[in-house]
């Protein structure tokens, strides 16, 4: 499950909530294109959608998480119907989504009052990057059962598996390849 990343400084207005939790600016502006934010809170973005939150095809592809780097480029040239060559306006586009249910209130209060995050195009590198950093550390698999796909293996089964491998004497060690 991916979340849009908003690293572009022009999108930096408001707290980080707008930065990574909210739907992209394109959503706000192009109501017809994106009638509703079905993915804003729970589901992944539409496959052709502006997953990377690029409001401008000129926006350089920033880091959007390891899984998406490869697939994002092709959307930047406006081929996708999801993108229109528009510039974002420095409006508090994130305002309606400032209080995402997944945001901790503490973070908001910290950002709203901070001079570092109060400027529309201000250098919010420290804070914004921090929250986006946390997204990089998160993986959905962290809450999934790691043993779900495994069957218990008995000691005797493992031993026979071991023995069958050890009879393969043709395999050389790494120093003798």
């Amino acid at each position, binding site marked *: 499950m991916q979340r849009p990343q908003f690293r572009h400084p022009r999108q930096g207005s408001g707290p980080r909530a707008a930065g990574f939790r909210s739907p992209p600016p394109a959503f706000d502006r192009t109501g017809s294109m994106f009638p509703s934010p079905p993915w804003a809170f729970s589901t992944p973005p539409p496959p052709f959608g502006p997953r990377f939150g690029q409001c401008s095809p000129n926006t350089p592809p920033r880091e959007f*998480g*390891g899984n998406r780097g490869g697939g994002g480029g092709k959307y930047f040239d406006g081929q996708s119907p999801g993108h229109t060559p528009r510039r974002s306006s420095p409006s508090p586009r994130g305002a309606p989504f400032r209080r995402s249910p*997944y*945001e*901790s209130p503490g973070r908001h209060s910290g950002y709203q009052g901070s001079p570092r995050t109060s400027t529309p195009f201000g250098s919010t590198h420290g804070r914004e990057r921090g929250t986006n*950093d*946390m*997204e*990089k*550390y*998160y*993986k959905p*698999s*962290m*809450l999934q059962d*790691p*043993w779900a796909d*495994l*069957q*218990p*293996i*008995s*000691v*005797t089964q*493992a031993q026979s*598996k*071991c023995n069958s*491998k*050890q009879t393969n004497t043709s*395999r050389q*060690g*790494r*120093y003798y390849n």
Partner: protein
Amino acid sequence: MKVAVEGCCHGELDKIYESISYLENKEGVKVDLLLCCGDFQAVRNEGDMKCMAVPAKYRHMQTFYKYYSGEKRAPVLTIFIGGNHEASNHLQEFPYGGWVAPNIYYLGYAGIVRFKGVRIGGVSGIFKSHDYKKGHFEFPPYSPESLRSVYHIRNIDVFKLKQIKMPIDIFMTHDWPRGIYHYGNTNQLIRQKKFLRQEVESGTLGSPAAAELLDHMQPTYWFSAHLHVKFAALMQHEAKNNAAPKITKFLSLDKCLPHRDFLQILEVADRPGSSVHLEYDPEWLAILKATDSLQKPSCNFWNPPQDNGLHTRWDFSASEEAMMEVVSDLSGDLCIPENFSLTVPAYDPSRPQPNAHPFYSTNPQTTELCATLGLTDIYILAGQSGQAYGEEGATGATEEEEDEDSTGSVDEPSEYPTDTSGLSSSYNPDEITIEDEWEEEEDEGVECAEGKGTDAVVPEGQVGSQDSDRDSSPQREMANRLILPPPCSAPESEDPLRSLRPLSLPPPSLPPPSASLSQGSSEEEGGLTPARVPKRTSGETTQGPASHTGGTPQIKRRNQSIYTAVEDEENEG
């Protein structure tokens, strides 16, 4: 209850706690407990940093010090074991465990605690066969050898754990139990970590000691780290005593970096009505009491007592009576007292002290626990006895052990060189870096340090000299006068000077000399106190038949052949 498990920490407490917090908010869960499987790096200050077995350029303060100083508080109860990258001087203060910071508990060399009725145990360190049978003899200042051996797991701790009879819910080791990789997706593991292939296929990867404990305890969960890979396994043990065969869920996790599998949240059944505070485990404490006299802080090999007619007692498991006695010792309150206190200065970023020497002293938490239960503070014992024991007797078995030595544990070959990439998932061990060579030198059991080019006389700085002020036993005085060959804790460290800060209990020792030492120098300048006895060069370390230095230090020179005489050629490595 929700238990978060983390692999190798490497001092990234801020990131780990932030990740948990992020995950809690995102997923609407609340984590009750964090378990960390080693490489915790509880570095309080610059001195502690020097007691980490990490190449100097990779030594970083990281973030633990903030939790130590009180600047931050761990948002969730954290329990950890030691790995092979630790501030060993700090952890040695807690042989039986203790709070390294508020809400952060270290299990000690080995330990079992209870939380919400769940029994959680662990053993610290990694397995290396050549040190396995030694006692916990190490004491700062560490030599390059003891800096490594200090975190090598010891059979005395495994012996204690094998006295456990009641079921354990969760157990942690830093390195993997040997063979566990056959109980999961082995092929996937080898694809992810190609350099493990040979050891996996030959069955030599992992710790045999941990495997022994896994077979004995058969806990519900077993968590490990060390190899920087997420790997899950389901091991079905052989049925014991006509009971249904138990299954252990094994999980190893990665280190804390972006996009890595370093964290796992699990639902672990707790026991309703049990304490929400961290508690001592009576069975474990009873075993500690019963085995207390077995501990010898010596580098001589210790052989556990067996039922072979040679020992009067070999069963040290805890009787009901012994457990009740423990409860009585604790005045009926099993809660681990929240008695953390700062004992050394914390790192202050505004006033860095890069030349600070490591602190080492007793810890009041250990003192209190030992007094309560009648245990020996083996850290003090190691400090006092370091010279008296010497190294004789330890070498007979050393050579045969060395043959199987390298099969102990993989010493994280890919960790520091690739640390900055964060994305590498495979490592070619043939591309050895300097750091690996530095580690592998130690793994070969090098005990003669003459090759390291230190031919200067290094004053030993007696291991127990801080006690000399207050302990005028004949043994101490004799040790003061003798110029002994250095014991296993040969102090060829970068910081032979020591400082002991006053605590409420042990009186302070000599203040540190004002002479500053460069990091690479092993020479001690003036400022020697009378209590410090210069020793002969470490090249004369007579560690047994393996030593070939005779009585003279070997000095490596360029164009060695020009200087090599016939007898020198025989001694060349």
